[in-house]
């Protein structure tokens, strides 16, 4: 596991020194993170890297996971989709069960944190317990809620307003109907994780060989959970449009999360479409596949992230960190990561994505320049050290009033 001092070579001594100074201001306060899954998905990934680094900085940080059964996670997936604006039918009985599981978790869990940091809607109801404590409560929303189903937002709003602050990932997620402080903090990638660290060429080669990919022809890749919102079928359409002009291969690779019951069904649908073309590689990756993802990204010619909705879309930063040209949808937090035609390409349709994919595959110099700019942008804005700095500032700010404070 990485230590905070390992980041000095990447972000500089001054950055790490100042993180230590900031962390020192949280001495005596415990920070308890709570989410709904220990593996799979971006939240678990960020927490698994962030908690050890916070501890290394001397912060008393911990991470707990709520318990829920299949029915609960089917309901929370519906809530997730409804917040993303999809037309989903959530019954009163669903909401009652959601509340009941949250109540059960309230009774089972030891909510000991001076700062209780709740991630996403699944455990949002734990805030009912705050009446019994003088602790600070923060709700971290990792989802795109720019256009949610109103009924679902109304249901959650009563919970959200019981927190001290809500944290969102992009400016477009800010809301005029919340009575609490709303904070903007982008998520991050860890440059030293298995998924992002440098890899020896022979490791990349062996993984590419394992998946039967041809290094002599362009490889176009989308890494993401198998989820409608990542638009895997749209990616296949893009590939088919480009394939008629350029002999390329498509890789659709990703895994699932324990709190996402839809994944296997969507994977089957994609496989049935892909089996007709040997150059479409659908790769299901178990949670421990970070090196495989790293190698597939590094072996790719162009990376796509053609999502219909995104909480943030960290796979974009992962690809940019590897200096890869990225074409991605202008949704969620992706426009923060890509300045169009400077550090990548932003699109909003199959036709647009296909157009730019052809362009990048035909003009490698332009593609390389986009990738280089993208890496620099990620280095300055989307690495885990910046994320830790923001979280520490947030935790400390809960104990101060006003916009300007000397510590």
């Amino acid at each position: 596991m990485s230590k905070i001092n390992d980041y000095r070579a990447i972000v500089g001594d001054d950055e790490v020194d100042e993180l230590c100074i900031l962390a020192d201001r949280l001495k005596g306060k415990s920070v308890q993170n709570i989410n709904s899954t220990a593996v799979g998905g971006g939240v678990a990934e960020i927490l698994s890297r962030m908690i050890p680094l916070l501890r290394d900085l001397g912060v008393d940080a911990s991470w707990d996971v709520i318990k829920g059964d299949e029915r609960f996670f089917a309901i929370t997936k519906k809530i997730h989709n409804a917040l993303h604006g999809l037309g989903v039918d959530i019954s009163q009985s669903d909401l009652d069960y959601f509340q009941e599981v949250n109540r059960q978790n309230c009774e089972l869990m030891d909510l000991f944190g001076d700062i209780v940091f709740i991630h996403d809607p699944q455990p949002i109801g734990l805030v009912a317990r705050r009446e019994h404590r003088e602790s600070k409560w923060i709700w971290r929303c990792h989802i795109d809620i720019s256009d949610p189903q109103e009924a679902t937002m109304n249901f959650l709003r009563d919970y959200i307003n019981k927190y001290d602050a809500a944290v969102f990932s992009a400016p477009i997620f800010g809301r005029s109907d919340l009575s609490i402080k709303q904070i903007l903090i982008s998520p991050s990638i860890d440059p030293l994780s298995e998924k992002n660290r440098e890899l020896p060429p022979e490791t990349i080669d062996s993984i590419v060989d394992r998946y039967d990919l041809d290094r002599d022809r362009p490889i176009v890749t989308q890494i993401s959970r198998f989820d409608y919102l990542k638009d895997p079928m749209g990616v296949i359409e893009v590939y088919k449009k480009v394939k008629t002009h350029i002999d390329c291969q498509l890789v659709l690779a990703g895994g699932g999360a324990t709190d996402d019951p839809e994944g296997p069904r969507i994977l089957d649908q994609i496989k049935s479409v892909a089996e007709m073309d040997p150059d479409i590689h659908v790769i299901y990756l178990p949670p421990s596949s970070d090196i495989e993802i790293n190698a597939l990204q590094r072996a790719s010619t162009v990376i796509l992230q053609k999502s219909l909705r995104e909480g943030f879309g960290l796979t974009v930063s992962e690809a940019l960190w590897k200096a890869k040209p990225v074409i991605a949808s202008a949704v969620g937090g992706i426009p923060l990561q890509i300045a169009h035609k400077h550090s990548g390409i932003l699109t909003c349709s199959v036709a647009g994505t296909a157009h730019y994919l052809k362009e990048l595959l035909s003009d490698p110099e332009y593609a390389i320049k986009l990738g280089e700019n993208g890496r620099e942008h990620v280095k300055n804005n989307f690495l885990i050290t910046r994320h830790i700095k923001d979280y520490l500032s947030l935790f400390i700010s809960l104990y101060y009033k006003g916009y300007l404070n000397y510590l």
Partner: protein
Amino acid sequence: MTEGFHFYTQYHLLELLGLTARSPEDMLSCIKKVPVSSIYYHTHHFLQRHHYLSPEPPNDFAFWLMDALHLQSLGEEFLGVDTISFCNLEDLRGAFADILENHLLKGGENPNCMPGFEFHFLACYTLILPLPYTANNLQEFAELLRKVSIRSLYFHMFEARMRLGVRDNDFSQWMKGIGEEQLAHDISKLDPYSITLENLRGKIIRMVEDRVKN
């Protein structure tokens, strides 16, 4: 006896105000009511976020008027506001509001942007912390300025002047205190809005080291 120069650093935490503008009229209404820290954020954040790029002169308002609404001439009026000449954020707010009011009074265009291109108002909380670095003379000052983060430089050159209402940057104030009037004056004269932060750091270090040599 004059004290040494104590370096500080600062952290910004961004607040989403939940206020959105779709037209110049909306923007005027929001500019009038947002906290001054929002005016500060939208006229200064590019300095830190893009400190590695050659600076353009964007404030967010100008960029949005030109990019999302295609109101080139109105945007250029916003670009023309000389941020460095304001020591007070309320006055800066007033300058932006005057431009929009005049534009609307004269019957200027007031289009709505396309959905998805709205202007989202942010504000920033600032936390200021002392660093364990004190310079007792110019030589030590140059060495420490090389060592501190870009946020520390930003705090002493921008934050102190604009948000804390101090008339000059912190470096020049300290230098005046130790009898270095000319150096203080030369650093005050720099336009920190037209240079990247790393270049600004290098420039100040060179000026101080030249003074030490001579």
